[in-house]
């Protein structure tokens, strides 16, 4: 947090993030529980003959998984960066405004009412997240849309959905079996078809977010100043929160309740490149994508042939980081 941050620091951070993304993405293709590895990967790329099983593993198992990790990471990190900037709260993330709880409740509800129909779970998650965002939108609309209102509404909704989830689990314990993978958050068994619906939302959402990053810089001057500069602060705050909900909801629909990506990645990026959202937003998405691919890779190989859900691994990394943030925040007077 020096008063002056030399330009080349940003260039290095951008180069390092992109390099990291490329390396982990390529690595994720040829490292896995099966023996299919680098030679098969190269053969596939160069068009040389490879066995059908190897091709199937690369295209039907690893490709959707890597794509899912990339999209989930980019979307959740972007959603987190948006929410933190819009609410001016460094500890905010998609969980805080109730998105995850809404999605989780919807998934448990469908797995309880329609057991065995796993295909509709991603759709249910997406709808749950969106409904939560819309409800928060209308609650906030009637109350002048202060930063605190949105957080309080999110906490209230989270506890309502949490109570709903617990009720379902007590009344119908079988629901957990169908929904456990989703509730923990993981990318094993993701199919290409799971990505069809969410991917346009994620790609469009990421592009839109980068496009409006400058608005967040104006917003960081405070409501009165942003208004004085001619911005309709209330409208933009809600639009950007809606965008964050869309991104998070789309990601949660196939990746499950992945916590902490949205929290830690934007923090790390701001620590590296400062607070200019025109850099923070795209770099958060890039690093978020790389981070989830990396964690998923670790989750696959750490206890191979057993696999731990990536959500658990990220919580183990994210939890201590969260505590570190709280301590650092206290020591340096909230300098997010």
């Amino acid at each position, binding site marked *: 947090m020096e008063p*002056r941050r030399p330009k080349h620091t940003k260039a290095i951070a951008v180069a390092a993030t992109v390099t990291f993304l490329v390396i982990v993405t390529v690595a994720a293709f040829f490292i896995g529980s099966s023996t299919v590895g680098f030679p098969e990967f190269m053969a596939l790329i160069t068009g040389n003959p490879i066995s059908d099983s190897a091709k199937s593993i690369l295209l039907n198992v690893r490709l959707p998984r890597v794509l899912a990790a990339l999209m989930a990471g980019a979307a959740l990190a972007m959603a987190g960066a948006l929410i933190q900037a819009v609410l001016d709260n460094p500890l905010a993330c998609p969980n805080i405004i109730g998105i995850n709880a809404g999605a989780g409740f919807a998934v448990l509800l469908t797995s309880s009412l329609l057991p065995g129909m796993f295909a509709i779970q991603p759709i249910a998650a997406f709808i749950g997240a969106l409904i939560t965002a819309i409800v928060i939108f209308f609650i906030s609309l009637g109350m002048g849309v202060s930063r605190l209102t949105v957080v309080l509404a999110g906490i209230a909704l989270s506890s309502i959905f949490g109570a709903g989830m617990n009720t379902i689990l007590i009344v119908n314990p079988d629901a957990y079996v169908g929904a456990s993978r989703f509730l923990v958050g993981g990318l094993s068994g993701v199919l290409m078809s799971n990505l069809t619906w969410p991917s346009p939302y994620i790609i469009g959402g990421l592009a839109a977010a980068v496009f409006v990053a400058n608005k967040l*810089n104006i917003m*960081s*001057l405070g409501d*009165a100043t942003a208004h*004085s*500069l*001619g911005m309709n602060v209330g409208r933009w705050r809600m639009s950007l929160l809606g965008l964050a909900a869309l991104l998070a909801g789309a990601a949660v629909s196939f990746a499950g309740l992945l916590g902490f990506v949205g929290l830690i990645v934007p923090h790390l990026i701001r620590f590296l490149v400062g607070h*200019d959202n025109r850099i923070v937003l795209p770099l958060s998405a890039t690093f978020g994508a790389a981070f989830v691919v990396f964690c998923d890779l670790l989750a696959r190989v750490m206890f191979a042939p057993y696999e731990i859900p990536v959500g658990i691994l990220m919580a183990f990394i994210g939890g201590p980081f969260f505590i570190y943030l709280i301590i650092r925040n206290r020591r340096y007077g909230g300098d997010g």
Partner: protein
Amino acid sequence: MVKRSSTFAVPEKVGHASDAAGSAATSTASATAGSVAAAATVTATTSGAATSGAATSGAATLSSPAVTVRDIDYSYTKKPFIEGLSLDFARGKITSIVGPNGCGKSTLLKIIDGLIEPYTGEVVINGKPSLEMTGKERARHLALLAQGARPPAMSVEALVACGRYPYQNRMRSHLDAEDKLQVEEAMALAGIEHFRHHDVRRLSGGERQRAFIAMTLAQNTGIIALDEPTTYLDVRACHDIMQLVSELNREAGKTIVMVIHDLDLALRYSDHMMVMEKGKCICADSVDAVFASGAIEQAFQVEVCRFPSDKRTAYTHFPL
């Protein structure tokens, strides 16, 4: 008890103290003296200073008020707070709004800036009702420096560049040549070029306020509204900021409307004053006329005394 004693003898000590305030103050003092000589009423003024003021604000004519507030009603609760308030703010002048806490000064400024909408009445900025303007259009006519604006995590230069937001649109959110020129001019005018790369959060109170003023200058408006620009600043920094404000008025032709708590600063550096009490304007006129009217005494329940030095004048007050 003698009220408003403009004939007060100047105690030697006080005279020395105000001289020690710095030679830079001399120019400002003469400006104040000038306005004292020219001062007559709020509305009828087209002196030399007003000429350059009109130059920056196209449509409106020289003598028309920069901002007109007409029949404003507003309340935070069911009880009326501001009722039937009407006033003109003269173009090319520095007008200070003073009044006790909770009298509606800041509310009035928020209404002028469109942050809150009055129940009835209208605000006319440069001849156009503000409700007919888009936010960005209004921000190209009037720049407001909000009270105690929170220092953002960006460089001084980046902060000043935010002042160009009203000129940007969906297709163009980066700075073009004109924007960059305006940012440079704003920083030069505010005298902050030498710390342009510093983090705004690391600046002293006075420097920070200068940076924010530069941001409003980058908006390139004819009118600048300031909400308590000297709060939390030390004495020297207060005078620095007020001298900058009168420079902007005299040299850049800006119309200044400011809410200010410090009566001495308000009386010294303004051309006109508006005294508010309980949501009403009890007096609005040139500084001398307001000083002579006793409205300040009535609103604040203090006795205001004038201390003329060689070329300058200071004001102090005693509780009644």
